[in-house]
Structures are given as C-alpha cells and as structure tokens.
C-alpha cells in the first residue's frame, strides 16, 4: 500500500441539478438569453485547471471599504454601516487562499452609480458601489460597506429586488469562475423576487442568505453579516487511469 498522498485530479463536475437552469421564464430576460442546446460535457483540462494570479499587492488600502473608497476626504457614504465577512471554501471544505473577490451594490436608496440606471432614488456623492479584496491564508475576507436598499426593476409590473450585494469570485482554475449574489437575513423581498426564484430549493436560497453576526458586530459602529462562498473543488485520487474522454 502506497503512503504517498492522493494526487489532485481535475475539477469535480458542476452539479447542474443544484445550479439554476438557463431558461427561467419568470425572469424574463433569461428567455432570449438562454442556450437551448445541451451543454457539451467534458473533463476539465489545463485550460480550465489554471487561472491568472492576482497578488495581494494589487489591492489598495481602501479597496475593501465602500464607505470611504469613493468618498471625499473626511466624508463617508450614507446608510447603515455594515461589515460583510466570511470565507471562500472549495467543495472539499478547504479554505481557498488568494481568491480575488470583486463586489458591487446599489446605494442605501437602491440606486446604482451607472449611466444606464434611471431609478429616481438619488445618487450618494460619496458612494461608488464597488470594492475588491483577496482572501487570506484560510480563505477569509471582510469588507466594510453600507446596507444596500431594495429597488424596483422592469420585469413584472411590480417586481422589487431584495437588498443584495453581487460577488465575482476568481479561484485558481478558470473552471471555478463564479458570479453570485448575497441576500440579507429576514428580507421579505427574498420570497417575492423572480431572480431569487430561479434557485430550485430553499437550501439554495439559504446558501445565499447572510445571517446577522452579532459576534463580529463592532459596538456603536457597524453591524456584521457572515457570508461564506463555495467554489468548485478538485478530485483527490490515488488512481488516475484516464481513458479517452474520461
């Protein structure tokens, strides 16, 4: 019996039953933007098992502080102050160090700073709405921001997005690339939203809903919410008898 540790194989196949479908008619934009042919399934190759390297030196001091990273000197963004923190893990439960996280959100009134956005809520001159960070050795991250507001969007006649923060996650293989959204515990819009509604199970909705974390809350300063994210893991194997196409 060998005592060498198992080798790292390719990525664990993505669970397409768990993940949302491409075509989800209540979210109308998906109707003409969803592929209709079956996806072509193949094992990951070097093209998907590698990815660019983003070093910690990329990150500026205020990149993970949305309260201040667009604000004038001595001023700060308007809204309830919060800290969002958690870990990036892989499917094997290991923390992913060095993952690039980019996040963006509406301001406290539910308005994005974007030229194609026309919601009547005002812009906050001190809030840009984006930030980024790189995870630490154990996969942990945190950033400071303000609580985003819910906002109406053109889909049905009266659809509102729950308060949410968008996340883009870059791990160590292009196959792990993922974009998702974080929701806030207790938001009554979660149940009503057609974009949340593409998730197939309550378990999937829960996986994107951040609880209030009183232990990380800074008294008299900021509340905290905990949001862990999981990206694809790689197979561990003693045996790698890859036949053609496997």
């Amino acid at each position, binding site marked *: 019996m060998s005592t060498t540790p198992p080798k790292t194989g390719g990525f664990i196949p993505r669970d397409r039953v768990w993940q949302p479908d491409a075509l989800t008619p209540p979210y109308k934009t998906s109707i003409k933007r969803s592929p209709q042919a079956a996806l072509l399934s193949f094992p990951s190759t070097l093209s998907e098992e590698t990815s*660019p390297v983003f070093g910690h030196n990329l990150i500026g001091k205020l990149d993970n502080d949305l309260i201040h990273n667009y604000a004038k000197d001595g001023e700060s963004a308007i809204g309830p102050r919060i800290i969002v923190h958690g870990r990036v893990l892989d499917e094997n439960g290991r923390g992913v160090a060095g993952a690039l996280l980019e996040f963006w959100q509406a301001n406290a009134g539910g308005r994005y700073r974007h030229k194609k956005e026309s919601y009547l809520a005002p812009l906050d001159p001190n809030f840009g709405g984006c930030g980024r960070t790189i995870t630490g050795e154990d996969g942990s991250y945190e950033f400071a921001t303000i609580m985003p507001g819910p906002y109406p969007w053109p889909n049905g006649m009266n659809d509102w997005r729950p308060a949410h923060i968008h996340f883009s996650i870059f791990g160590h293989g292009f196959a792990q690339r993922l974009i998702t959204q974080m929701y806030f515990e207790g938001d009554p819009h979660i149940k009503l939203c057609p974009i949340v509604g593409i998730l197939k199970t309550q378990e999937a909705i829960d996986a994107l809903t951040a609880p209030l974390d009183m232990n990380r809350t800074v008294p008299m300063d900021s509340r905290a919410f905990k949001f862990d994210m999981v990206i694809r893991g790689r197979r561990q194997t003693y045996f790698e008898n890859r036949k053609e196409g496997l």
Partner: protein
Amino acid sequence: MVQKMDYLRESPSQTAGPYVHIGCTPNFTGLNMYGGDLGTSMKTGPVQGTEITIKGTVFDGTGTPLRDAMIEIWQPDAAGLFPSANETRGTPDPNFTGWGRSAGDMDTGEFTFETVKPGAVPFPDGRMQAPHITAWIVARGINIGLHSRIYFADEEQANAADPILTRIEHQNRIPTLLAQKQADGTYRFDIHLQGPNETIFFDI
C-alpha cells in the same frame, strides 16, 4: 443511516445583472477606481509569438447584440504555457498575462481582445488539443456563466485531430467555435446565445 458525506455544495450562481461593469470594470462605467480596470491589457511588454486581434459580439435569440455582457478569456502563451501558479511544465512568457476581460463597446457591444495566437496544450490523456482560448460570458439574463472555446478556422489540421472537436456529435455546429480571419487580419468570433447558430457552450 449511512455515514454523512462532508462535501460542500458550490454556491448557487446568480446573474451578473445589468451593472456587472460597476464591479468588474468600474473605470469603463466612469468610476475612477483602482488606477484602472483589470484585464484590459494582456501584454505587459514585448511578447513572443504572433500577435492577433479577436473581435466579436454576443447576440441574443432575436439577433440583438448584448450591450451589458462581460466576456473573459484565458489562454496559454505562444508556446502553450499558462501564466498561472499551477503551470508546472515550464516558464511562460513573462510579458503575457493570458487573461483578458472586456465589457464590450458601450454602444455596439462589440468586444476586442489584443492577444497572441495560443500554443497547443495537451488533453488529460496526453494527446494535443488544437490551439484554443477559453471564453466565459456573463450578463443580465444569464443565470450561470457560460463557458465556451475559441478555436481557429485556419488551424484545420490541428482542429481535425482535436480530442474535443472530433467527439462533438453535431459536427455541423463546430463552425460556431471557430474564429474566422477577416480581410483586415483580425479574427471574428461572434457568440450566439440561442437560435440556429447557437454557439456550443461547455460543461467542463
């Protein structure tokens, strides 16, 4: 009861939404952040190999161009080596990042990548794959990012021996994966999300 499996489930995907550019290419939307957007240049100095330009547009099922998509590409250098921490086969071109990100043109949606023609990379069983670039597309209305590959129509011999291209059941769809060289020397790679010319998307 059997033992409990302790694997975690991948976080469910959600659409990048209409404002993905605020988060990933803020300078493109007019926010002056970070000293520039990531992925706008794939070259940090003189590069080895053949420099190429790839242009394309993402179309929806009605043939309307998407103007709110984000496209990322990832590829090896001209020698087939990835500028990645996971690359163990050699030293890649130090002036090539291998990774590009484009928001497309604000008015037309057309994306442009200034890159190099990629070298060939082996398949897991050791056979060589045809030169290709991995592409990833997200946008409002796309619930989970779409992976595809950009192969080159002028690599006929390598394409004919490629382990993936040769296994595709619907061979008449292969042209959707081929970048075509244009009269001006650039390559064209349009992406059709659905319809008769729907691009082949990968579950990989």
